[in-house]
């Protein structure tokens, strides 16, 4: 299934844009999303960490994504 992905901060630079689409198998987890991202964009390995938000909330590695979810790549935050 095709899933929409948004990127912010340094993640935008790493993936080369603000938004894109990636292809995942049914029942893919956040862990698999992170792995796929790191494989396609090695720049993620150099980050202190990064998280994935689904529908405006952080989700853990075992969260299963669904068609229609909007994934957002959250690199280390630095507000304040």
């Amino acid at each position: 299934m095709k899933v929409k992905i948004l990127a912010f901060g340094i993640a935008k630079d790493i993936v080369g844009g603000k938004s894109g689409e990636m292809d995942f198998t049914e029942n893919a987890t956040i862990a698999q999303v992170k792995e796929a991202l790191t494989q396609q964009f090695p720049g993620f390995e150099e980050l202190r960490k990064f998280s994935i938000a689904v529908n405006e909330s952080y989700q853990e590695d075992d969260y299963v994504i669904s068609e229609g979810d909007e994934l957002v790549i959250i690199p280390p935050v630095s507000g304040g």
Partner: protein
Amino acid sequence: MSDRISVHITKETLRVANCYEHVSHVSAGGNAMFIGTVRNQTKGNEVLKLEFEAYTPMAIKELEKIAQAVIEKWDAIKVSIHHRVGTLRVGDIAVIISVSTPHRAASFEACQYAIDTLKETVPIWKKEIFRDGEVWVSAHP
């Protein structure tokens, strides 16, 4: 959100008087504020300006979670968290947090919790722009 919470992400200049007004209350015994500003240097490198970017809908939700925790854990009367985004110059205010509580010790603790948590969880990012380059703050180990 209740009228005890004021959360904003804005491109406009932040003002301490405005943020304080949101939390002042006749039953408050203490009001603590934190004001985060743009420093002129980082590790000796002169900062020309900063660019703040937010994933706004989620940032608002995370700020509201922080505000709610402040009200529940410290019995705060009111709390306001205002964060600016866009291009900021040295000396500009990036964030103002203001907490009113019945007793003063709690206002300090709650305010410190709020800024500490904001810096860990709220999806806002800043890029420092130097004369010879730029860097996303905290991105790398």
